[in-house]
């Protein structure tokens, strides 16, 4: 009996030691990646201040780039996780209020954050889908920054990031959670297409759709992921009118409702007719 207790104790002690070593390894590995400093030249962006540009920025931020999904309706940030195992992770306050980035960011800092996924000190961000936003054209990025700078200040001090074990494990299993690592920061960027009812412009607008619908829009693999939007996928029997009706009203052609907690159709539905037609044209090109 005593011998078996001794072996049991040794087994438990070994498992605890192994677990502690694994936790240490995971922590070190992720923290080292997050401590890295990224240095690259920031392309100068013209940030306009006219009303039309700010309105263009508001349109993009509140519709197809889904910024409010994570940063909150007033873009003043909100906590995502706050427990010892997931850690403390928040989407930043983008306004100029207390705890916000608006009052302290230069235009270059905004570019660094949105396009490259690194903060003002060059350290990588997590969660921010910069690998999708990297292709936003200079004019649109300037408009977005102009809109963000025009936001009314909201005081919202959020806690500093402190990743828990579960979040660190998630980062190990998916490198794109640190977008700075998967972006080629010096690669030439294709010129942004001119706004038009064209498949090319539709592709440009649908960049952020890849977050849920997968990199080639053929549907995600996780539960709650977006549908297959390619030729042989879930929209095969839809017409352009039905596509636009679905995104405007949340009602599919056969009358079923689109769950707004899964597909943010209320945001996408605010795109203009031409923008939706452009996206539809692009989807028709996908096989």
């Amino acid at each position, binding site marked *: 009996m005593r011998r078996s207790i001794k072996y049991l104790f040794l087994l438990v002690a070994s498992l605890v030691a192994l677990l502690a070593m694994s936790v240490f390894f995971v922590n070190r590995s992720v923290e080292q990646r997050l401590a890295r400093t990224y240095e690259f030249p920031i392309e100068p962006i013209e940030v306009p201040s006219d009303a039309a540009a700010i309105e263009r920025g508001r349109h993009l931020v509140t519709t197809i780039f889904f910024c409010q999904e994570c940063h909150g309706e007033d873009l003043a940030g909100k906590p995502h996780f706050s427990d010892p195992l997931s850690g403390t992770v928040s989407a930043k306050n983008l306004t100029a209020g207390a705890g916000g980035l608006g009052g302290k960011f230069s235009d270059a800092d905004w570019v660094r954050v949105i396009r490259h996924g690194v903060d003002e000190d060059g350290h990588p961000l997590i*969660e921010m889908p910069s690998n999708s936003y990297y292709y936003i054209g200079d004019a649109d990025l300037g408009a977005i920054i102009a809109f963000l700078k025009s936001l009314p200040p909201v005081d919202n001090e959020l806690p500093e990031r402190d990743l828990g074990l579960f979040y660190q494990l998630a980062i190990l299993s998916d490198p794109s959670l640190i977008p700075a690592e998967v972006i080629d920061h010096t690669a030439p960027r294709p010129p942004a297409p001119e706004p038009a009812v064209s498949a090319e412009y539709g592709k440009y607008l649908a960049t952020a759709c890849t977050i849920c619908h997968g990199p080639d829009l053929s549907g995600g693999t*996780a539960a709650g992921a977006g549908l297959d939007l390619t030729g042989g996928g879930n929209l095969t029997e839809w017409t352009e009118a039905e596509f636009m009706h679905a995104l405007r009203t949340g009602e599919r052609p056969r009358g079923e409702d689109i769950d707004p907690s899964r597909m943010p159709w209320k945001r996408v539905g605010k795109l203009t007719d031409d923008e939706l037609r452009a996206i539809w044209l692009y989807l028709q090109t996908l096989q």
Partner: protein
Amino acid sequence: MTTARFATTMPASLDKRLLAARTAWVAVTVLVVALVALGVPGLYARLIAGVDERSVTDLGWTLPGYGTYLTGLYLLVVVAHLVIGAIVFWRRSNEWIALALAFALVCNGALLPLSLIYPSGSVSPVVQLLVGLVTYIGLVTGLSLLYLFPDGRFIPRWTQLMVIAWAGLLFFAIFTPTSALSLAAWPIPLQLLVLVVWSGVGLFAQLHRYLEVSSPLQRQQTKWAILGLGLAVLGPFGYFLPFVILPALSDPEVPNILYQRIGPSLFTFSLVFRLIGLTGFTLALLIFPASFVVAILRYRLWDIDVIINRTLVYGALTGTLALVYLGGVALLQTMFYGLTGQGDQLAIVATTLAVAALFNPLRRRIQAVIDRRFYRRRYDAARALAAFSGTVQEEVDLEDVSQALLRVVEETVQPLQTSIWLRDIRPGS
């Protein structure tokens, strides 16, 4: 064991009080069963609504499976407490201390499920009052047992003041939660202090009793029972601790775009942890009835071990056969379907026959395991007798058989002295 037995010697007034207490136990038990039974659909719906469907699906499970599992887990706790409480009541409700245990078991087993089924503020005042009554009885009797077990007397005597004060504190906390006297309205550090002081004094009382008062047998019985009583007092508080430490466990829903951006691994990790935590904490609540089962079976607390033994054997047998049946039907259906494209009926018939064939061998095996764990002496005696019968079959020499008989008597009965008288049966003697 030494306990005050009222069945034969109690005066008429005590008899009436005991009768009233027994009637109250039956009424409370019916109330608990009714509250739990009526609340099961609501509990199931609440459990399903409280989890992120995406993480359940990504774990390869379904929402109904998740809801059924946790509902079943909570019901297991209720049923285990009810069964042990009912047996104690049935066999020993003529003893106040056993009656108090029966109350504590029935009410404590339902505390967690009732708090989930009928959260404060979301049900009618009448239901709230009934749930409060069950909670009150459970928490008061649970702590009282810590002070009274095993002989029903307060030792030291001043500890009865602690129980009276505890009953008063809980009364205000449960029935007038917003009043200044309510424990629930006090700062959390003060609440914790109260909990530590009252359970600490109870443990001190048990330690004092253990060292100074109890007989050796009572000490053995007390060891197990105190483990359960300690958990009965601290368990309900311990259960909710993870939700205080890990608030994300209570509210796991995040925007879908964030869920998809992060990927399912973080959420499935959290769900697995949540399930393991819930399962572990819920099963830990079973230690309260289980410790009394051990005290009853192993150290013959209240001499009701035979009934508990049968309950354990047939409970384990039923559970095992149900698992075999469900697993067998699922496995055979898959096999037959793969081979022939159909086979539902065949799988059910084959599994039913297998379960019928397994009944007796499995019952014997479970009985042997329980005897080995809890009736060691009887188990060893049975083994010694079996070995002796083997020896007798092989031995022809009377002297050898006599020696073997003496040996087996010494091993099993352990008398101070043994001798054999062999009757001379020669013809004419």
